[in-house]
Structure formats: structure tokens, C-alpha cells
């Protein structure tokens, strides 16, 4: 199993929570946004020196990644809003994009879509270079699963239904062919499991209360590999929710953990 964590840390110094989460969920790769509060050498020590931050020639900007040392992983590209990585588990080769798109308050959907188009172009270039289409995009998209940024051909072109992507991993629109991603979120959102979203917000007059801003998208090749995804409401015995919303002193976002089965 390949276990991936994404967490927007709200610039809080929460190394103990991160270490507990990584230990409890046997995380292989952890991607973080708003990570400036974390002292990574201290986090690495708390993880027994078994994990390391994957740096490259350029400093991280919006996202950073920590991975277990037994994984062959390297950073391929750093940009203002996302980083690209390639890694090999021995079973499969993957491309991973960790993203933190522009926030809703200060930027428009068009700004996010411009970044998404750039990201897609770079993912496709890397898929050609590495001859690998096991691509994963994970992060804080600052957009919801049904939002234009996710569903439009000019955005991620992410479909929410496995049936659709299994039929074809591309679609045609106005004489152009667009590659698709699969967004598994619909399978996991549930009142039964209280899997509502990653961010709680009631400031708008038409608030949805819970927003799934932190998501994972995969190519068709990995659509059947996703065994589980969850927004964690607890880490070991520690509750991440106070009353109804995430505890801001930990983070305003709940962590997202995704498990992928490697043999499929």
C-alpha cells in the first residue's frame, strides 16, 4: 500500500501532530502547504531520522514534501504554486504534483485555472519524459470537486465517476483532445463516516459549511488503485475538531490521507 498525506498546516508549529499522524497511518509521503511554522530538522528527529524532506536545487515555495528514506524519490520541478516529483516504489513508477492553488479571497477562478493549465502541461511533459502515466495531483486546490477549476477541460478536466474515465481517459471539446483525471471524492463523502470536507466556513450567505478544498486526482491508470481516502478528525486520541470546526491552533484544514493499492 502507498499511503500519502496532504495537510495545509496553517503555518502552525505542530510537529508532534504531524509525527503522530505519519506514525499512525504509516505514511510513505507527506505533502504540506503553509508549512512555514514547522522546523523540519526537529520533525525528522521526531520520526527517528527515518523520513527526510525532499529538497532540490531550488527552495520550496508553496508546498514541501517529506518522505520515508527507503523510498526512491526526487524533486523534478519547483514552481510558485506546485512542485513535481517522481518516485519509484519498486512496484511502480509515479509522478506526483503537490499543489497549493491561489486562495478564493484574493484570486479568481481564472487565476487558478491559469496555474492548472501550466501544471497540466508540465505533468504531460513529465509523463512523456519518464514514460509514466501513474500521475497523482494532491493538495489544497482552493476549489471544490464540482468547481469549474476541477471539472472544466480548461481546468483539471477531472471526472468524478470511475465509469466515465474507464471508458476513456480523454475527451473531445471543440476539436481538441483533453486528458482526464479521476477525482475519487464522491465515493468517500458521507454523513455516516462524517467525511464532510477539509475546511469549515460559515462566512458566506450561501455557505455549504464544509468544503472539500484538499483533494487528490489521479490518472485513469490509478483510478482503481485508490483503496481509501479520508479527512482525519482525530490523530490517535487527539481530536482535531472543536465543536463543529477544525481547531485553528492545530490547523484550519483537516489532514487528507489517501491509500493506494500497488498491485492494481
Amino acid at each position, binding site marked *: 500500500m502507498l499511503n500519502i498525506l496532504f495537510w495545509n498546516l496553517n503555518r502552525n508549529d505542530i510537529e508532534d501532530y504531524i509525527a*503522530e499522524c505519519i506514525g*499512525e497511518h504509516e505514511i510513505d509521503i507527506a505533502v504540506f502547504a503553509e508549512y512555514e511554522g514547522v522546523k523540519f530538522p526537529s520533525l525528522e528527529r521526531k520520526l527517528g531520522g527515518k523520513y527526510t524532506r525532499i529538497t532540490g536545487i531550488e527552495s520550496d515555495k508553496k508546498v514541501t514534501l517529506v518522505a520515508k528514506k527507503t523510498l526512491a524519490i526526487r524533486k523534478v520541478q519547483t514552481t510558485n504554486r506546485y512542485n513535481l516529483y517522481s518516485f519509484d516504489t519498486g512496484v*511502480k513508477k509515479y509522478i506526483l504534483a503537490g499543489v497549493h492553488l491561489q486562495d478564493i479571497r484574493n484570486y479568481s477562478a481564472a487565476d487558478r485555472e491559469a496555474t492548472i493549465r*501550466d501544471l497540466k502541461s508540465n505533468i504531460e511533459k513529465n509523463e512523456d519524459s519518464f514514460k509514466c502515466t501513474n500521475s497523482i495531483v494532491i493538495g489544497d486546490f482552493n476549489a471544490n470537486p464540482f468547481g469549474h477549476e476541477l471539472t472544466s477541460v480548461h481546468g483539471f478536466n477531472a471526472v468524478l465517476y470511475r465509469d466515465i474515465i474507464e471508458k476513456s481517459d*480523454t475527451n473531445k471539446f471543440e476539436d481538441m483532445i*483533453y*486528458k482526464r483525471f479521476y477525482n475519487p471524492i464522491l465515493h468517500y463523502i458521507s454523513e455516516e463516516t462524517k467525511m464532510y470536507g477539509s475546511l469549515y466556513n460559515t462566512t458566506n450567505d450561501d455557505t455549504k459549511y464544509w468544503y472539500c478544498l484538499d483533494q487528490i486526482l489521479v490518472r485513469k491508470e490509478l483510478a482503481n488503485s485508490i483503496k481509501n481516502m479520508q479527512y482525519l478528525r482525530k490523530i490517535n486520541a487527539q481530536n482535531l475538531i472543536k465543536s463543529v470546526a477544525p481547531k485553528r491552533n492545530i490547523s484550519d484544514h483537516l489532514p487528507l490521507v489517501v491509500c493506494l493499492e500497488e498491485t492494481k
Partner: protein
Amino acid sequence: MKNESFWGFDNSSMDELVATDRIVEVMNDQCKYLYDYTQGKVFAIFDVIKREGALLSVIKTMSEVSKYVSKNATIQDTVGEVPINELIDASDIYCEKEYAFEIYTDTYRYRLFSLKMASIYPVKMKIEEVVYEHVMNELSLRGIKSDKDKYIVIENEESFCDALKLVLQDKKVRYIINELQKSVLSEKESDRNVLDKIIVCEGRNDEIIIDAIAQKLNCKPIFVVADGKNNISNLVSNVHERNANAQILVVIDSDGEEEKTKALFEKKVGKDGYQLLIVNNQVEDWFIPDVEDFSKLKLLQTIDTIVGEAEFDELRKKYDSFDKLLKFLER
């Protein structure tokens, strides 16, 4: 009555049209110089950024498009004497495209700038943020201005070459090229070792413990964790298929049934392409009671100390499986 020509062919505005056709040539030469300077370790590409999807490959010629749209077999397929499929849409010649200049190795890409360019100047260059901060003042002194989106606006070839020279000689770019050259050398070394030794084990605890043992022996195998005995045979087949040249060790806990575990596994996977290590009863037994009832995090935090203090020679004598593991790692 003769009407006035509104084309403006006679006035100076035609002289203001400065073509950008030399830019691609200049950039391709810069790519070649970088390749030569780094002896092929680092290279650069100047190419159109493909942002939208690909054109449908089924529609190859304009005449096919016309027939498809009109479903009319008698549609005109020439304009004058020129077949439609040889006519070029003149607006395509002018249209602005966006190019990227990226510095590469086989495993890393760095976009130094993008360039919005049509057939005539001005062109607009968006330089990577840090380099832009370094060069913006000098650019400004040379009369090259930026717009509100930090695109620098270049009016002619001379200004383009000035800007390009400043950017390519920026200290960050120099640093990146040096570091990329070094990384190519160290990656070649580590790639040789990365998938040499692969250990497939049942669970995360096994990985943590065996990795600590490997670290003590200065060895860095890749681990594939099956997350359960039932998954291990499928995983081993996949790993072997992908890594035919690697040495593969499969570590399984016997849970008290060594012969049965071995027979079951060999029945599913066969006997070739890997070494099988069956541990009686489980990997943790090598260090019991030190690791008993540890949480995953506690195991991560303490295993190096526990393994560091362990006497490997004694463990080798006590456990055949431990001896077999060390032989694999030491090979």
C-alpha cells in the same frame, strides 16, 4: 474617381514592423552553447508551451473539415488554383504563442522564463521571480520596462539580446547550472544502486526493523511493503517483472508454521527470481522484548538505538533467518 488607399504602405508605420524571426535562432544557439559547455550534462529547450489539448488527429486537412461540416461532396476544394489543404490561414502567421525556456537534466527542470511572441515585436518575457528581482533594475536602466504583471516588454532585437544576456548571466542561473551538473554526477552514482536490492516484507514494522539493520551495515535497499501476508505473492510477481536484474529478498513471518508458509508461497510465486526468508515467528522476535507493544512512532524513534546496541554476531548464531538477512545485505 480614385479612392484613397487606406493601407498606409507609404507611411513610416510599415518601417516600425520589426520581425521576431531571429529570436528562435538566437535561443536555439543558447541551448547549444549550454549543452556544449556542460558536455551534455545540462541542456536547455526553447519551445512552445502546449497549454490546451491536442488537435483531433482524425481531421488532417481543411478540405476534410469542410466536407465533414457540410456533408457536401461537391464542396469547392480550391481557392483559385490553390488546393484548400495547402492554404495557410494567415492569422496563424501573426498569432501570439507562448514559449518557455527551460534548463533541464534528465531528472530536473527549471523554467527560466516564458516568452509571449508573435511575428513582430514587441515581445513579453516573464522571468522566474528571483532572477527577475536581480535583473529588473538593470533592465530598467536600459529602458526595458515591465508591465503590471511583471512581464518585461521588449521592443526590438537589440533589447531582447540585452535582456537575455542579463538573465543568462544572473548568479542564480549560474548556481542552478553548477548544481545541476553536480547532481547529474551524483544521480548517476545513486541510480546504479537504487534498485539493486529490493526487500519485500509483510508489514511496516518489518520494514522499519530491517531498514535499521541495513543502515548499520551501510546498505540502502528499497523496501516494498505488502501490508499483509495475502498481498505478498502478487507484489513479488510485480516487483520481479519490473526489476529482473535486482536482487530480491522476500521476508515473511512464519507465525509458527514455517513449512506451511514456505509451501504456500512457493506454490503461488514459484521458486525463481527471488530469495525467500521465513522468520520464526516474526521479525520483531529478533529484538524482543525491546520492541514489544511499541507503537509505530515509538518504533521509528527507538529502533536505531536498539539495533545499534545489538550484537549482530550473537543474533546470527541465535537466528538462522537473521544470518540469512545479513548475508543478503552484505553481498
